[in-house]
Each structure stands twice: as C-alpha cells, then as structure tokens.
C-alpha cells in the first residue's frame, strides 16, 4: 500500500538522506503493479499473435464484461482480507442474491423496486451474521464462512425448490409487468456503437467507491491497522469489532449485487450459480498483492488480478485448447504471482536490511 504522506514528506526532508523508503514503498507498489500490467499486456499480445482475427475491440469489451462479477466480489473480499479475516461464503451469497430476487419478484410478485433492495439487504444480513460470529463468538472466520457457504447454498436450493428462473418466461401463474422487466434488463443493457454492458460501468463505479473507502478514508486506514496488528488495535480502542463486521457486511452486499447484475445480464438464475466463483475471486485478490495475514491489499491490485484472469479465460476459450488449460493457468498464475512477490521482497530485504 502507499504510505500516508509520501508526497508531502519527500521534499520536506534533505534530498541526500539515502534512498528513502517512501521511494522504496512506492517503488515496490509500482513494481508489483507494473508486473501485473506487463502480464496483462503480454497475454493480450500473445493472443494477438496466435489469433490475430479475434483480437478486436469487441473481444476486449467482452473481457471487461466477463471480469465484472469476479471484480465486484474481489472488492468486497479485499476489505475482509485487509482486516485480517477470510470470507468463503461470497460465492454462495452471489447465488442467494440472484435467487432471492428471482423468488421474491417472479414467484411472490414483489415489485422489483422493493425486491432489489431486499436482495442486497440479504447480503448485508449475511455479512452481519458472519461478522457477528467472528467477532462476538470468536469463531475463526474460515470456519464461520465455510459454514455459511453451505447454509446459503442450502437456502438457495430451498427457496427456489431447485428450479431455474427466467423473468422473460415466468412460471405459469406468475406475471411480470413489462415495465419492471424493462427496468431489470436496463440494469445491464448495452450501449454505444461497440456495445458495452452497463455492468462494466457498475463495476468501475463500485471500484472507485471501494477504492475511496479503503485508501482515502479513516475507515480504510483503520481496517489496515486492525489487519496489521489486531491486538494493538484492540488496546488502542480502535473499533475493531464494528469495523470487522462492516467489512463482512460490505463483502456480502457486493456479492449480492454481483449476483443480481449477472442475473440481469444472463436472464436466468439457478440455485448453484456463483459457487464456482469462490476460488477465482480469491486468486484475483491474491494476485493483486493482498496478504492473507492481513493489513495489506489494494483495490487496483484486485481489479488488475480480475482483469488478468478474465483475459486468460477469454483468450484461452478463443484458442480452444480445452477446458483443462484454463484451470492450469489459473493455478500457475496464482502461485507464480505470490512466489514472485516473495522473491522480490526477499531481494529488497537483503539489500536494505
């Protein structure tokens, strides 16, 4: 992460004072991000050489669309990881977000304008549940969220009665007012000459919002502190419990939003959607430089991680070497990114110590 006052202090101090670690910290970040961007460009270049015909703007836009739900969830997970906890349940929350909306709106006839906030609210409630168990009962977050992952999937199966929903073809007996259907599809409608889905705009807007929250507010500063040294934060009377719960709540809400947006785009909701997103989202956050031990992580990193993954996935799908290659790459990139990071840290430590 960037230091508090990098720009301010540098000129205030004597220029000769060795290589300040301001420079060092920003240099590290630049190196990290530079490496990620380089990887993103290299992958794009490789695709271009291998398959020049399919390298066009529309493919690029489809990559952005494809990354958006992973990216939105990675924003929430970044907050939880920064505060030193883990959330395994957001994938199931993504499913419950879409499915609870489908059930309320299509099956029970709740107007979309009410069902939508209720579904996002369910995400907040689940976050509250996770956070409360982690902070008040002191159950490790890995266990709490492993449990709630299964609970949420169970609820999804239960309320949908394992059926699939599509608002365009509602089940017999239900009727969707056309205005509500239009509103719902408009959430992720495409615009422009090279059609780009509004979902990408949602993703960017949320990234800016969470980025501001994490890197420019007291909330984010304290999340970093709590993740860095929870015992000290507790003794210094920082609001540890409240902030941890809030991180889980935001993570749950963002997962619900991602599920709803994908539902709007794809137009179908099934009970088991989202479950397979768990590990790609973790991969995005970790490739982006967050540390699972807490106190470290950036929004730009998580977004870049999500972009690299989506690019690989789309590119490899175009090359059609088979589904196994995507999985192999996901594995290599995740381990490789962290290994590279550790190697760089080691080199720097040896030089600076």
């Amino acid at each position, binding site marked *: 992460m960037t*230091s508090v*006052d990098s720009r301010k202090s540098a000129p205030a101090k004597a220029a000769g004072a060795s290589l300040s670690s301001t420079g060092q910290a920003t240099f590290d970040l630049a190196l990290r991000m530079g490496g990620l961007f380089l990887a993103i460009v290299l992958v794009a270049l490789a695709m271009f050489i291998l398959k020049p015909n399919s390298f066009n703007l529309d493919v690029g836009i489809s990559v952005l669309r494809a990354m958006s739900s992973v990216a939105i969830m990675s924003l929430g997970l970044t907050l939880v990881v920064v505060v030193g906890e883990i959330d395994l349940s957001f994938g199931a929350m993504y499913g419950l977000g879409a499915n609870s909306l489908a059930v309320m709106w299509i099956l029970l006839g709740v107007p979309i304008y009410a069902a939508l906030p209720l579904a996002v609210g369910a995400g907040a409630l689940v976050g509250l549940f996770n956070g409360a168990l982690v902070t008040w009962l002191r159950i490790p977050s890995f266990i709490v969220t492993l449990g709630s992952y299964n609970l949420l999937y169970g609820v999804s199966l239960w309320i949908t009665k394992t059926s699939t929903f599509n608002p365009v073809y509602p089940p017999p007996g239900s009727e969707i007012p056309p205005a509500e259907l239009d509103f719902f599809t408009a959430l992720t409608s495409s615009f422009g000459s090279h059609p780009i889905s509004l979902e990408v705009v949602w993703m960017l807007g949320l990234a800016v919002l969470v980025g501001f929250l994490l890197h420019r507010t007291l909330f984010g*500063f304290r999340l970093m502190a709590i993740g860095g040294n929870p015992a000290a934060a507790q003794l210094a009377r920082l609001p540890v419990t409240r902030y941890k719960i809030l991180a889980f709540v935001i993570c749950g809400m963002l997962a619900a939003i991602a599920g709803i947006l994908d539902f709007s785009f794809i137009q179908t909701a099934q009970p088991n959607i989202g479950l397979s997103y768990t590990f790609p989202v973790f991969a995005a956050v970790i490739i982006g430089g967050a540390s699972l031990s807490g106190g470290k992580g950036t929004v730009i990193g998580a977004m870049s991680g999500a972009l690299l993954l989506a690019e690989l996935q789309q590119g490899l799908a175009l090359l059609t070497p088979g589904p196994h290659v995507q999985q192999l790459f996901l594995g290599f990139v995740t381990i490789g990114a962290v290994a590279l990071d550790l190697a760089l840290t080691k080199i720097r430590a040896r*030089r600076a110590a």
Partner: protein
Amino acid sequence: MRINGLRKRYGATVALDGLDLEIRPGEVLGVAGPNGAGKSTLVRIIAGEEDADAGELFLDGRIWSPALDWRAVAIVHQEPQLFPNLTVAENMVAGREGDGTGWPRPSDADLQIMDALGLGSVRDIRLGECSLAVQQRTEIARAVARDARIFLFDEPNSALTDAESDELFREMRKLAESGRVVLLISHRLGDLVRHCARVAVVRDGRVRAILSGEALTEDGLARQLVTESTGAGAPASLRAAEGPAEAPPMFFVRRWTSQGAFHDIDFSARAGEIVALMGVEGSGARELLRSFAGLERTTGDIALAGATNIDLRRLRAYVPATRALSLYSNFSVGENLLVRLGVPDIAGPLLALKKSRMAAIAQQSVRRFLVKTSTTTQPIRSLSGGNQQKVAIAQALNCKPDLLLLEEPTRGVDIHSKNEIYHLLRDYAAAGKVVIVFCTEVLEIFEVADCAHVVTEGRLSRRLTIADYQHIEHLATEIAGLEQSLKTAARALSPVRPRPAQRLAGPG
C-alpha cells in the same frame, strides 16, 4: 574463543566495524552498548543467522564458523523459540529424535540434564503452560544436551521476576565454570556488573572499552555508554516542584477492586505528577495500571478531570509493555504515529482522510518526540528499538490524554533513549496531565517519578515522595521495607490470592 576484525554492513549502515573480542573459558563476558551499536548483529553472526563481510572467529585456537558447526552455539532468548505445543521432555529431544520409528523419548543423559536444571518435575507439562523461566531453562537444557560450546544470553531476564533472574544467572555461571564460552548481552547494567567477570562496551560497531575488576561498576558502565550525558544523575533537579498539597486530585479511584488482583484500593494523582506503581509480577501492580486504562473487570469509583466511567474513555491512553502490542509492522513510522487519531484530527466529513494534515502531524511528532528517522514514510521496522519505543509512546501522546498510562516504558531500551523518554514524560506531565507508570526497577522510579506506591499482594502502600530521597539506595531500602510490611499485613488479614501474570492477555 576469539573474534578478529569482524565487519558487517547493511546497505549504507555499518553495523560492525572491525570488532575484536576475546572470551576466556570459565568467565561470563558481558556485552553492553546502546541500541544500534552492533550487539544484535554480533549475536546473529555468532549464531550463524548472518554472514560477516570480513573477519574471523576462532574456537580453541582453530578457525571456526557457525556454518560448519551450528550445534556448537546456543542462544537463550528473551522469548524462547521452542515448541509450545510439546511437553518439556519432548522439547528436549526435538531435533535429536534418532532414527527410531516410535514417539521419541528422552535418554538417561537427557533426564540427568533436566534434573540438574530443575526441570524434572515439569517434564510432562506442555511447554506453553510453563513459565517463561522454565521455557528458558528448557532452551538451556537442549543446548547442553547437544553439547553446545558457546552460549549467548540475549537480554534473557527482561521479563523474569527477580527470583527467576537469580536462578537463571546461577545456571549461566555454572555453564561458564564448566569451560563453555558464555556471553551475556544486556541493557541492565546492574546484572552485567553482578554476573560478569568482564564487560565489553560496544559502540559504533567496535569494542570501545573492556571493564573488569575495580573499574566494573554501574557508574563506570553508564559513563562508557552515554557519549553525551543528557541529564543523567540529576533527576532531582528535573523534578517538578511539589504543587500545593491541598490541590484537588485530577484522577482518583475509590474502593477499586478487581477479583484476584487487587482489593479496595484508594488512589489519587494530581495534575502534573508522574506516579510510579511498583511491584513484582503477580503483585497486582500491572493489573492496577491496566485497570486504570479500563482493561480489567473492576468495581469501585473512578473519576478523571470530573468525568466518570464511560465518559473518560477518550481522556486516557495506555501504552502496553511490549511494542508488539502497540506498533503496526505493515505501517510506516508516520502511520504508526497517527493510528490512534480519528475525526477531526486526521479525517473530516465522510471520514475522508486529511492527507496533508496527516503528513504535517507526523513530521511534527517526529521532531517533538525525538524519533530518529530519515523520513516519516519508512517502515517502522527500520527503526532501532529505542526509537520504536518513542513512536509507541508518541502514538499515545498524540491523543493528548489527560491520563497517560505506561507499562515499563523503557524495557529493552538503551540508556540514551531512556533519558529522552523520561524527558518526554516529564514534559508531558508538566503540561498539567497525569502520568502513571508501572515499573519493575527502582532506578526507573528514581529517575522519572515524582512519587511512588508499592503494590504487594493486591494492596497499595503509602505514597513515597521521591524528592525526599537523596540517594537511590535510600529509596531502594524504603521500597523493600514497604514490600515486606505490606506482605505481613496482608497475611494477617484475609489474603487476596494474586493471580498468575498474564503478559499477553487481551483487554478484559
């Protein structure tokens, strides 16, 4: 053992600059020096954790290197680095299990060593449940069992009680008498004088002096350690003039009780005062200080500057005994200084951080609290221990509390930083605040406090005014006497059972 021309550089910093040292068999050699003098680098090189850039080590007249024979070296740390989940006996054999397939057991020789170190009775207890002293002795036993030749005691007793320290030093001398090479690295000058035949003073990466015999006194060592004497030895003149005795107290507790730690305590402090609470581990002194910070479950009345109970939350700040509980390793120096602040100091509407304001406060605190750092943005870990401690205290001072509570504020800090920290505390109290310090050393009380209370078995002694004592010896005698009489009084009444020390316990 002989060390010749040891050199080590870290980037632009020279840690060791041609260090020569000779350690004779049968003696305990002390090593003293201010923080950053190169002591820890020396330890790391002998232990084989770092390679020297130049220089040689000789053992028994032959050239030797820890890389060739790591088993020869043993380090006894302040925090033992063993396996808390295994029993003492299992710790003893871990790493030397042999090639058997069964669960490893200690050999007869191991059992003898453990008995000799008084570990026989705790053999089957999990190490994590044992006291620090037992853990350290286990570390020694392990080293003896593998026939280590070189023993490095690195600040071994900074967290031990007096009785435990004595025990440890007895073992240390026994090791030396058996012909092993023993080094004691310590900040505590008294221990060095008492337990070492010779003490090498390391400054700027070299041995500047070796004191022995008559010349080896605390005063002599202190003089060698402090290049520029900063008011050391003149504590009385620093002390604020005693305010009018009838000035109302700014902070007080009444009938202050915490189950199992202390009982029915009446305590008060006036603005501008530094009050010391003294007591050994388990006496209740540490718990009493923590209770003032709201970290213990208590009954009774508390008031600070007119506010009571919940209202006084923002009025007080607490500095824990270890820096591991106050500093954030993922943060820079500046961020560490600011981390306790909130709206409106460093954040405004929408909780948005005021970045330029933060930079200004950080710069200002670095100057005001004498933190030696080249920028406010370098990692906190790059600072020396003394400067990290200043940051830990400054972090609390930045909240401008009316009541500042510190636990052992100069533990493991070199003498120069120590004096600077005392100045900071004195200046802060002089601004009309109350400072309460938990101390374990009389010297610290003598140098920083205006008055002191001794805590024994959960009871508070009468108030001692430090200015009444011309010499530290007088104060030490008085404190020892008070401790004794309190103990007797406590025994006569219903005894409050002191509970075992909880060093790293979270807030209550």
